[in-house]
């Protein structure tokens, strides 16, 4: 069970949160994107060995949706990698 730091509530047990999945690519314009790109957007989610950006909802807390980087090798919650903004 992770310890996740909520910007409002501080370091809390994972059991207070619901997992919102990895953060994928930005939603393409559904009226201009190709079928293939739309399917890719819907179905291909990041699953790296290493840091992944993901969302958690502090459902049993303040209700904040937060975004963290978690290293899938160690579960360490880490800083955003340098090559991302």
């Amino acid at each position, binding site marked *: 069970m992770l310890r996740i730091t909520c910007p409002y509530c501080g370091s809390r047990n994972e059991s207070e949160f619901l997992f919102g999945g990895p953060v994928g690519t930005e*939603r393409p314009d*559904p009226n201009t994107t190709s079928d293939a790109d739309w399917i890719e957007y819907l179905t291909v989610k990041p699953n790296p060995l290493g840091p992944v950006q993901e969302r958690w*909802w502090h459902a049993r807390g303040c209700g904040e949706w937060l975004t963290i980087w978690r290293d899938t090798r160690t*579960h360490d919650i880490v800083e955003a990698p340098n090559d991302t903004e």
Partner: protein
Amino acid sequence: MTQNNRLTSGGRINRNRTVNFRFNGKPYKGFEGDTLASALIANGVSVTARSFKYHRPRGIVGQGVEEPASLVELEGSDASGNCPITTVKIHEGLGAKSVNCWPSPEFDLGGINQLFTKFLPAGFYYKTFKWPNWHMFEPSIRRAAGLAGAPAMPPAEGHFEARHAHAEVLIAGAGPAGLMAALIAGRSGKRVFLADEGTEAGGSLLSRNLTIDGLPAMRWVADTVAELTAMENVTHIQNATVWAYREHNLMIVNERQPNGKSVLERSWRVRADQVICATGAIERAMVFTNNDRPGSMMASAVQSYVNRYAALPGKKAVIFTNNNSAYAVAADMAAAGISIEAIVDSRKNVPSDVTGLVTGMKVLKGHVVTAAKGHKRVKSVVVSSISGNGSQTIKCDLIAQSGGWNPAVHLFSQSRGTLKFDEDIASFVPDVPAQPTLSVGAANGEMTLAQALSSGAEAGAQVSGGASTETPKTNDAPYAIEPLWRVEAKGPKGKAFLDIQNDVSVDDVHLALREGYTNVEHVKRYTTGGMGIDQGKTGNINIIGTVALQKGVDLQDVGTTTFRSPYTPVSFGAIGGLREESVLFPYRHTPITEWNHANGAFMYEAGARWRRPGYFPRKGESFQETVNREASTVREKVGVYDGSPLGTFELKGRDVGKFLDFIYTNVMSNLKPGNGRYGLMLSEDGLILDDGVTFRLDENRWMVSTSTGHADAMNMHMEELLQTEFPDWEVMITTVTSQWNNATICGPKARDVMEALGTDIDLSPENFKFMSLRDGTVGGIPARVVRVSFTGELSFEVNVAPRHMRELWQKVMEAGAQFGIEAIGSEANHVLRVEKGFLSLGHEVDGTADAYDLNMGWVMSKKKPDYLGKRSVALRRSSGKTRRELVGLLPEDPNRAIPEGAPLTPGGRKEATEGLTTACVWSVVQNRWVGLALLENGHARHGEIAHVRLKDGTIPAKITAPVFHDPAGELLRS
């Protein structure tokens, strides 16, 4: 029986307390402090189990959680399955029996499998379940295999509980290393949590005759425990296994019977800044032919029975070793009166510091045991030189074997730390940790007592930021080993087991490798080696060694399989703690639960743990009569139900309209205040998430209702979109499900009831239209009245504050009495909605159907350029694939019900389905059974006959439009 094999003195047992227990139906006596294993050894019981696959007779092999051979099922109030015999403490009245054998381990019918061993090779299950038809084998496999059954009843006494704790230092294991670390960390003032799986602290010292600073080592243990007990900052628990090492140093500890019988097990979740693994080491078996015969035991276990329990596992013993540790065992055994026939050591050179311990005994250096003889008990061993020369037979009834020691790296490995193979001790040791953790003592490959004490002290100092102190002097011999993964010298034929619990032999591993399963994880799954409940504690490294030998590579390159929690079996009760049934997930009630009970309601759980009345049976009525009565009341007169559990949200802000237009398929933003609209929400992949009615209260305030069971998910969905996709949109969401309760009055006489209640709202159809909302008072109570209908009849949903709900309900029943009002339950509601063809999530909305399939294409806005799911629905429909579409079904025999969920097949043949029945009810307006179904090309097939396929026949039914009552919807608008 008397305890013939009990020494007259010594041991850590209480001879003043005799304990009566039963094993496989026979009565025995032991002493307080005994385990079931030690008591049975004292009573001379040698066959205690039958093996899993071949039903070979098995005895006691180990002394603790590593026990691979003998599992027992506890009976009566202790009922529990698959307990290692070595971990069961005896108490007065305990009853236990062996698993895997019927009728008894002495005479086991399943033993017949032994005659067919060549038909049960590795991968047997994989092969059998493919060809020709595994059902042929299944019944006999199920009878012959399988472990203990689950207890049929909850525990008679006591309960399970859970606790949470925080520690600066958690130490797993109270052997010498763990105690030393706890002592140093505790003295520094750190908050220490020390947990040990044994009944008392001391670890290996409980079983070995060693000294610390010239005194018996257990004296040092007692002094240390006393000092720790006196420290307020130290929590020390015994009978407590640290069985899981989770993320961010969360440790899960299972403490057994902390308060006598009142607490069966307590599950601790301890979050620690720093973890110290002082989990010791586990002795591994020797691999030779018939190494599983009763009487073939781990040397350390024999030492434990002799020293700790004063019980003799045999009279004449052969020691078989490849390392130093067995020599002290031989000395202790001889001192207890066991005749040591020979010490067989596979090493040609044995260090003199250990031969000195066994002066006068026969030591066969460079020799191996090639086989054991005897069936229900070892009678002799065959010994030859390691190259296979000079075979000799030595009579004995006990083999004490030591194949070396494996650091118990389980917890470290669970924490995702990596392991490396250490040539010096010929086993895997912790390498790079992944979390704040230290491994000390034997768990870190430091095998002597002196090393355990000094590494424990060092770790204790390290976590407290102090310097290591001098550690006490000890007297154990140095450790040295030459690995022997399996005996290769040829001897008598037979099976040499690597995994005794799962009956995996050297031949099985060789077969797996020949068949291409060369990765160690594949070897494990193909042979099931290491997959027993002991998780191969005594055998896994030998499997790795056997693979390495066969492939001609190093053990490091073979690697270990993944260590997973739990380290030892944990009961489901301990995992659940107090969170059982209604405590786990409390029921939700509306203010009229008591009224429902008082009026004889049969209560259902209706989504999200809401308790709702299913129906209100009257004396002498059948279930169907009750439902028919309630449904007819609504169609002919007036009914009322409590609609409070429906999910309700209030959305506020400038951008709510824009937001609703994005999450609903139709346009909401153009609603006028006071009006509402039915809407459908899709997920981005085009599936229906939920449906419901949305009302605009004023310019910037809206009320959104969702289905009862999906309210929480819809809240999450809306919040996620607002917070992550549209953070600059001004929309605030408040859950108001519990702020409003309602009585929904429905039926042709609903308006009459409203008038009788008295209201300041103009109820005329012209001024209060369907799908609109008015605030006012009803029966003198402030109320918000909504004209929606889930039954197809004229309906008024009267919403009030929860504190007024009982009063409202009472007034509705009184005012409605003259019109024949009745409370109706969810069964009648189901009938009413099916008659109207209204959708139900989980029935017609099954995760595949889209709005078009459900005759609701009108709800999919063509005007809006974008909304959630639009592109995906279009994409899916553009494939032109046949869709399952919503239709009505009229069984040709009007009195024949169709089971809900029953498949429809082409022509009723036994072949692939073309649809399913989503609902079927007795229609009170049609006076016959009517159904709804999702059927391939259903829209084009009205008037045709569909065939419901049952196991033993078919039901023909006419396909119709999915509406059986008031198709034009005039009644609900009236």
